[in-house]
């Protein structure tokens, strides 16, 4: 093992068979950590954190809304990154990763949009405004749905992967637009208060539930991604076996 170069080791890890055995071993512990993080996050979010002095109890919406929005964007970056690796190195596992990330990312985008709406009504007095942040998030949802639809329409996995990867990469332009939308344009949406120059401006008592929920959502995303990648690898094995049977 010590004689192997780093790239050889990476390739060994990226082998689907190796991936199946490795992911099979870490899934259980990852699910346990996810559950622990989410339960402790919920405890602080609902029971052990103060209401905001301006927003009152609606601040508790933040502990679901903000992690969902982060995961919506992280999911897209995983999808676009894996798509780029798939296009350049033609590695099947990268395509599997990109395809598996899409439905999870879409679900979190949907959650971010609806919870934002439920927060907007009491705080802004409206369910929806067509401003830059909200509109670019809606475009993100449509990009996810378009990506999923493209996979569903092309029968042959290698061809579907290439087409979908191009769509994912073009759509990646939207991610920095979402992030900077609150800076570049006038909006009702508040600016970043955690990942900003000069550190977070949010109170520690609210940062604890926010960070626990964000970590829990992230672990949930990664765990689900592994499960879906395993299912996708099996789906391709089924396809191979069916094609082999048709040949006989």
């Amino acid at each position, binding site marked *: 093992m010590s004689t192997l170069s780093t790239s050889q080791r990476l390739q060994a890890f990226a*082998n689907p*068979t*190796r991936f199946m055995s490795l992911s099979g071993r870490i899934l259980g512990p990852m699910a346990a950590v996810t559950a622990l993080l989410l339960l402790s996050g919920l405890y602080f979010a*609902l*029971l052990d954190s103060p*209401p905001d002095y301006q927003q*009152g*109890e*609606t601040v*508790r*919406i933040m502990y*679901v*809304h903000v992690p*969902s929005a982060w995961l919506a964007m992280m999911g897209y970056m995983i999808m676009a990154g894996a798509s780029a690796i798939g296009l350049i190195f033609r590695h099947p596992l990268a395509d599997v990763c990109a395809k598996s990330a899409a*439905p*999870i990312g879409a*679900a*979190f985008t*949907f*959650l971010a949009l*609806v*919870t934002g709406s*439920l*927060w907007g*009504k*009491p705080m802004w007095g409206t369910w929806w405004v067509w401003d830059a942040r909200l509109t670019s998030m809606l475009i993100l949802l449509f990009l996810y749905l378009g990506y999923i639809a493209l996979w569903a329409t092309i029968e042959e996995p290698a061809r579907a992967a290439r087409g979908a990867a191009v769509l994912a990469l073009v759509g990646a332009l939207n991610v920095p637009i979402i992030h900077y939308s609150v800076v570049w344009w006038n909006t009702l949406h508040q600016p970043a208060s955690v990942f900003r120059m000069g550190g977070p401006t949010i109170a520690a008592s609210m940062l604890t539930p926010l960070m626990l929920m964000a970590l829990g959502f992230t672990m*949930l995303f990664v765990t*689900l991604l592994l*499960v*879906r990648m*395993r*299912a996708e690898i*099996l*789906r391709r*094995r*089924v396809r191979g*076996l*069916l094609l*082999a*049977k048709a040949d006989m």
Partner: protein
Amino acid sequence: MAEFFFMGGYAAYVWPVYGLALLVVVGLVGQSLLDYRRQLRLVSELESKAGGRARRAARTHRSDA
């Protein structure tokens, strides 16, 4: 307790957020696991139908990897 559910008068906004989050998470986990089990079953069905020779060949190939 009643105060907790009242959410300072914002119950109609706060609880749907947590309810929907639960629904989305349970839906994602459930759908992912069901699909995984389905594919697992299909693979084992097809491999057992493929006959002894193909299965032996597949096993040799897998241990090569």
